[in-house]
């Protein structure tokens, strides 16, 4: 079943069937990743550009591995080594790249909407690898894949997203995707980091982590961006840990198995304690493996449709 769209820009408005197709297809690629030869010739002769205007190691590495394992030709383009520093606009950069006969562009940009803009000015398939505080669809897809793998159907599952909701594209994509798949979604964080009208997205809001844990099956713990600490959204890291840090004691009070997700990189003993991050209910490392499989599925589905 081909996807109904040529680009993956976000999960907002993406039909359930498309999400289902991507997750099902990823299962086949998980099998490829277990083989002695972890490469299939599917995208032979296709060229993919990783256009990263914002530094990222793990998402870029994950995309690059996925592309190479599908036998695509890969070009990496990062902002600090490029003409962007010399003042070139996004549109000009994109047009230049397009003239080089590229089939797919993977873009990460600090401005929300950059991927949408790109999809309007070039012919290639566009995959959003994170745009500002808007969306990061492949992260949410790999989160959903990992949850489905660990706990079965997403229907009716209660997922609570914890941390800096306001600045998080991971939170936004997860909310859209999970709601579409029939999961119950809530968010929890300090008042300064939860957007005021977030209920309009159909999520429940908690300001007390213990109340959130009492109701949840899954906690998706977001990274506290230490770089944002200067803007003083909360008084200190110590206080954040005290009120919102996910610790073994807090989880044990729930008397249930609560699955733990984290998009990485983790700040040990800030948003999540080390024993929880390494515990049996944590699927943080599986997320990394599944990330490659899910990105292969997206590249395959977009790259081979006519």
């Amino acid at each position, binding site marked *: *079943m*081909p996807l109904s769209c040529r680009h993956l820009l976000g999960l907002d408005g993406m039909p359930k069937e498309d999400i289902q197709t991507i997750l*099902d*297809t990823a*299962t*086949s690629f998980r*099998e*490829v990743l277990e*083989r*002695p*030869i972890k*490469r*299939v*010739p*599917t995208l032979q002769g296709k060229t993919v550009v990783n256009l990263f205007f914002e530094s990222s190691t793990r998402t870029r590495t994950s995309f690059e591995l996925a592309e190479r394992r599908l036998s695509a030709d890969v070009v990496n383009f990062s902002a600090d080594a490029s003409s962007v520093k010399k003042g070139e606009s996004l549109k000009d950069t994109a047009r230049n790249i397009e003239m080089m006969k590229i089939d797919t562009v993977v873009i990460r940009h600090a401005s929300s909407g950059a991927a949408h803009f790109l999809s309007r000015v070039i012919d290639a398939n566009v995959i959003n690898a994170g745009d500002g505080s808007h969306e990061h669809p492949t992260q949410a897809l790999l989160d959903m894949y990992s949850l489905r793998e660990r706990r079965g159907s997403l229907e009716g599952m209660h997922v609570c997203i914890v941390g800096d909701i306001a600045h998080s594209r991971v939170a936004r994509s997860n909310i859209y995707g999970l709601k579409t798949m029939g999961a119950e979604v809530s968010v929890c964080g300090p008042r300064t980091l939860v957007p005021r009208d977030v209920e309009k997205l159909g999520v429940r809001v908690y300001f007390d982590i213990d109340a959130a844990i009492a109701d949840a099956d899954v906690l998706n713990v977001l990274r506290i961006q230490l770089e944002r600490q200067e803007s003083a959204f909360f008084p200190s890291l110590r206080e954040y840990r005290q009120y919102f840090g996910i610790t073994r004691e807090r989880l044990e009070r729930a008397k249930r198995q609560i699955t733990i997700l984290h998009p990485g990189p983790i700040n040990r003993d800030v948003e999540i304690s080390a024993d929880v991050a390494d515990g049996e209910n944590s699927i943080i490392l599986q997320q990394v493996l599944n990330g490659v499989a899910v990105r292969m599925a997206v590249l*395959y*589905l977009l790259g*081979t*449709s*006519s």
Partner: protein
Amino acid sequence: MQDNSLLVDEQGFQRTLTRLAHEILEFNKGSSNIAIVGIRTRGDFLARRLARKIQEIEHRELQVGVLDITLYRDDLRGKLNQPLLKGTDIFFDVTGKNIVLVDDVLFTGRTVRAALDALIDLGRPAAIQLAVLVDRGHRELPIKADFVGKNCPTSSDEEIQVRMSEIDGEDAVVLVRKGRY
């Protein structure tokens, strides 16, 4: 206009499978080192049936796998309908085994070419043999089957349909003539 003629009926289908099973065993001098791999979708059902027959003759468990060749196709680019990926399920090590690759119809040979590449990516089999229910000719690649259920020379406006009870409700091989207007 469409005109069908029955090439193999239910009993014929059974007899052909039985003969193929014996031929595979004779050629490999028993079943001790063979494993059967079917190409999705009908090759998968054929592989399971052949394996059952061989087990009945030899009284020995046989390893059976399924191959999804979608990722290895050479026609993915121009295709209108993207085939649904169902995945490869081969839960044993192919290295050192005599692999009997099973498909329903041998036509251009492109599917088999893709299957060979897919199998070799899983390890290094001692040998790969090809068993097909029907060989209809029109090869585009230098590929030949080791075990053939039925040779049916066809013309290009004809089509061979293999029907299997698992999904089609009956076992039969039918020649379909797509008449020209």
